[in-house]
């Protein structure tokens, strides 16, 4: 049996990325859909198997740490790509740049004059109570005034087909290596489609990342020494840290490989002695960066690193303290932030957000817990959430208590009709599964947006949770130019 798009069961009220109505693929996905329906069951299976063995051969894995042991799991991957037209992507990409630019101006303002608070746009207590505001960073001037150099912004499409920003990850966003690996897998298993369709390449990310990092060097002109700082093999994103270091030709270091000298410069221990490091792409959280300033018992960080950074002897990306804007309450203000600093309307809207510290909004949230998604302001990875429509009465009562006890720490959003895309289920059946999209945005001297991003898909029927730590998978993301066909 082959794939019959007429049999594809579109879900009422949800936007499907590939299929507009039974049997009708959207324009950018037309050639892909036709190709897929030309395959018989065995061919589909052999593509599926080829993708799995490619994943094993390339060693794409994410690590789950449980019961004292590391388990490398193969990366769960669906062979049917998600397709977006290049016209739509151009607009989205401009919106992402706009957003990061404004967020960086906001962070820089917070650590200097705090004009936005003085002007009454943002209430002061938001800053006072923020878990991610670092007084240690006040008055520091990172190059180009940029604090969040690498941002992973989660986009979702609601029932109306419009992209919304769900959250901005400004601390240590991960997933970009999977975006790159997904493309390599697709090239190997669906080469025929690449011949026919104008799919924009994604492979320039490591180069763009390296150039951005190099531009931050405190010793411009020289060829800078760039290092990726990882917490080590036990971290779930270790694969990505190693991958990016390798692709950029940067050193992959752990805290114990680095030392700060009397001259406040950062050095790495090499077989030739100590060698100065100019730029550190750190993949460990603020609180573990420097035991002299933050957690004193952190063994992941480097004593003296903050001192070196404050004196401008080393660049850190993202800068410490950048996470202050990665807060779901600050998120609710991003439209105002964009207007305040850039005088522009946001190009990509936010998801409607209720702030629990405001009395009226909290009352609404408490009365509608069964319809809303409640999130803590400072967690990531899908932990500590309440998904109203899927919750039990007991869970709702628990959250009601949590919200009342600490309203500042919670926001709520309507349950989104997260868009779907056809996903292979069983041998040759396709069913809609919910997904989101995480593009990565870089900002240094100039800015850059990945072509598409990482599409994460909830592999379980009906599930809205796409995080890989919670059983999600991924798809390749194609930005397709439909204006000119390939000859």
């Amino acid at each position, binding site marked *: 049996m082959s794939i019959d798009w007429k049999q594809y069961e579109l879900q009422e009220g949800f936007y499907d990325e590939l299929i507009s109505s039974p049997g009708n693929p959207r324009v950018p996905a037309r050639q892909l859909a036709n190709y897929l329906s030309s395959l018989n069951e065995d061919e589909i299976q052999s593509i599926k198997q080829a993708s799995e063995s490619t994943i094993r051969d390339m*060693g794409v894995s994410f690590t789950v740490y449980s019961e004292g042991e590391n388990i490398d799991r193969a990366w769960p991957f669906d062979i049917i790509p998600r397709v977006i037209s290049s016209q739509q992507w151009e607009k989205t990409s401009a919106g992402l740049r706009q957003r990061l630019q404004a967020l960086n101006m906001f962070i820089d303002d917070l650590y200097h004059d705090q004009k936005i608070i003085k002007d009454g746009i943002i209430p002061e207590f938001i800053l006072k109570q923020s878990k991610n505001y670092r007084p240690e960073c006040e008055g520091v001037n990172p190059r180009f005034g940029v604090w969040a150099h690498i941002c992973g912004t989660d986009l979702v499409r609601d029932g109306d087909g419009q992209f919304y920003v769900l959250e901005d990850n400004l601390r240590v966003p991960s997933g970009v290596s999977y975006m790159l690996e997904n493309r390599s897998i697709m090239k190997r298993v669906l080469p025929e489609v690449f011949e026919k369709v104008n799919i924009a390449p994604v492979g320039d990310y490591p180069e763009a990342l390296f150039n951005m990092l190099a531009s931050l060097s405190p010793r411009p002109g020289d060829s800078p020494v760039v290092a990726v700082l990882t917490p080590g*093999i036990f971290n779930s994103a270790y694969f990505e840290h*190693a991958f990016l*270091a*390798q692709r950029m030709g940067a*050193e*992959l*270091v*752990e805290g*114990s*490989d680095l*030392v*700060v*000298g*009397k*001259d406040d*410069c950062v*050095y*790495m*221990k*090499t*077989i*030739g*002695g*100590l060698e100065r490091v100019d730029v550190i792409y750190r993949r460990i959280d603020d609180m573990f960066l420097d035991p002299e300033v933050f957690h004193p018992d952190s063994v992941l960080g480097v004593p003296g690193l903050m001192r070196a950074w404050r004196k401008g002897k080393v660049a850190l990306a993202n800068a410490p303290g950048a996470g202050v804007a990665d807060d779901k309450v600050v998120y609710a203000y991003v439209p105002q932030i964009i207007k305040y600093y850039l005088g522009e309307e946001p190009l990509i809207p936010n998801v409607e957000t209720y702030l629990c510290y405001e009395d009226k909004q909290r009352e609404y949230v408490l009365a509608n817990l069964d319809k809303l998604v409640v999130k803590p302001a400072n967690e990531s990875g899908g932990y500590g959430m309440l998904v109203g429509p899927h919750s039990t009465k007991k869970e709702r009562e628990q959250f009601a208590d949590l919200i009342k006890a600490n309203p500042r720490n919670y926001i709520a959003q309507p349950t989104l009709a997260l868009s779907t895309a056809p996903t292979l289920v069983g041998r040759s059946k396709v069913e809609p599964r919910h997904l989101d999209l995480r593009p990565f945005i870089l900002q240094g001297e100039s800015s850059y947006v990945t072509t598409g991003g990482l599409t994460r898909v909830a592999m379980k029927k009906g599930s809205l949770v796409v995080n890989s730590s919670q059983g999600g998978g991924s798809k390749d993301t194609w930005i397709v130019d439909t204006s000119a066909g390939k000859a």
Partner: protein
Amino acid sequence: MLSKVAERIYWAARYLERVESTARMLAIYDTLLFDLPRQLNFGWYNLIEINSLEESFNERYTVQDERNVVKFLIGDESNPSSVISSLKAIRENIRTTRDVIPGDTWELVNELSQYVQENMNQGINRRNRHEFLDQIIRACQQIIGLWQVSMPRDKAWEMLKLGQNLERADMTTRNLDAAVAAIIQVEDDEYAVNSHQTIWGNLLRSLNADQPYRRAMRSSVKGELVSRFLQTDTQFPRSLSFCLEDMATAAKALPRSEKVISDIHRLNQTVTKGAEDTGPGPELRDVLNDLQISLQYLHFTISRTWFLNDQEAESLAVAQ
């Protein structure tokens, strides 16, 4: 190159060499069994003493028999030098250096670990032991061959050569020691002369040194010559002098290597002198023991020179 990466590669190479040499050492004793007169009370426990593992062996076993010795040297995870522990150590070291060591190493090491685990009983029982040990040796050679043809001759390569040769030199002293220990045991036996021949011949064969020996020494198998060959031959890759020279070459390509190189040369002189002065009797065992200690010191020098520990790095950092 980061000190830590250098250290991991060095250890990965050492452990791989240890796996192969351990298998070879067991093979010596295994084949000896076939050739020596049955009335000889032949001591497998020698292998434990030779590897200085008496303490941990006796913690674990009360009976010092063939079965326990073989089990301890191959499949016992409480023995840090066993084949299975060494393979685990290789995995841990290359997991984090996959960008420097050819990627296929990872799969080959995993396969070998799996093979050893699944076929452990074949090694313990005499019937299939030869084939089992042979498979281990072959798998090691496959990995070494992979490195040989696919690694750029950069600093990672030199680190790998240092680890490989240091361990190889150490294991050659131990293999030689194993033979001498066996000789001493058969000393007063009426079959002694024939048995000596058998033991030395087996030692050579298990190190693939049979033909190279004959070509270099132009002589039948004689204890004195075998001992000298394995210590000072300049062309055979498992001889001590060869390993040391290879290490000196590797060290020259690395920064700050003066002390390591002079230590290597001094040790090589000791080897030559010892081989000239000492015959293949009991006193050779002391010489070999001293050499093992010197090799351990050489390791410390290497470690201090290139694997900066916190204290050394700290003192350099203060100087900046």
